[in-house]
């Protein structure tokens, strides 16, 4: 799995990588998938046991598809708003949406981050590398129906993609100095 290109969604704020073999960058691919009833129906059909394991209650495949798209619409709008606001220097910034992937990530450079769908108990995840308070590089996404990322293939792939993206961004910065930002 190799990154073949980077894309600016909003200059100086939101970026996305493109992996070899994919037709689109990861942000575009993600929202196309979350807006595609066929792909979503197939995904939930293949993960019906996880869907009905109890954490999300009992949800039909059709309703799971509808919920995913509605949440994706809200997340898409919020991502767009925060990236724009952060760029203009107003109150909102992308750090309000993204959180460290694990507690161990907090404070590290090239932090691996995740954003949740905005509904309570959302299964949507957007994965990114944090460059600074309002610069993030999207490198994947998932519908996460299980508690951890380590026991489902599609989630483990996302962990790999995060690591690949992190290394890709780090190796291109070998001559630069790090700096520290104050957390307010």
């Amino acid at each position, binding site marked *: 799995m190799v990154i073949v290109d980077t894309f600016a969604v909003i200059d100086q704020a939101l970026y996305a990588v493109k992996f070899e073999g994919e037709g689109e960058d990861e942000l575009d691919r993600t929202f196309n998938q979350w*807006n595609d009833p066929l792909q979503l129906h197939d995904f939930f059909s293949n993960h019906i046991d996880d869907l009905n394991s109890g954490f999300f209650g009992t949800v039909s495949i059709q309703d799971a598809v509808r919920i995913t798209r509605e949440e994706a619409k809200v997340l898409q709008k919020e991502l767009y708003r925060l990236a724009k606001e952060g760029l203009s220097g107003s109150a909102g910034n992308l750090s309000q949406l993204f959180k460290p992937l694990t507690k161990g990530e907090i404070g590290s450079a090239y932090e691996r981050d995740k954003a949740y769908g905005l509904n309570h108990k959302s299964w949507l995840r957007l994965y990114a590398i944090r460059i600074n308070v309002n610069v993030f590089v999207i490198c994947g996404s998932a519908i996460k129906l299980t508690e951890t990322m380590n026991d489902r293939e599609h989630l483990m792939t996302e962990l790999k993609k995060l690591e690949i993206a992190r290394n890709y961004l780090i190796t291109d910065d070998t001559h630069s100095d*790090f700096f520290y930002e104050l957390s307010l």
Partner: protein
Amino acid sequence: MKKTAPFPDALKNAKKSNWLNQVEFDLANEDWLDLSFEIALRVYSKIKADGKSKKWLAEQLGCSPQYVGKMLKGKENLTLQTITKLEHVLGINLITLATPTQEFKLDLDVKPNVPNIGNLTMDSQRQELTEAESYTDYQSYQFAS
């Protein structure tokens, strides 16, 4: 305090993503995209439940499998002709219109009292007809008034 990475070289020559265009299109067309998505979902669920294929659907509709694929993405601005064809082929209801025409049909089913129709609303006419007051009589009255 967070350790922050310098701006990566890899991002300095980043190409322009299509995502913003997509968001703007989705926002401007949200209403009909919602309907297109819901229709695609119901159509796909039905053909899966019936054990049919996209190819079968294309044959029934007399269109290409590529068009069916596009339609099932939920981003196609479908014509009424296509929607009604889908309804017939799959035996499902995809759109329901609350139009005066439909209310009129519903009122026919409850057999309104023809002689008193005058200027009153259809709802007020819901009374049982006698055997002699047939549906044909009612139609004649409608055309004559």
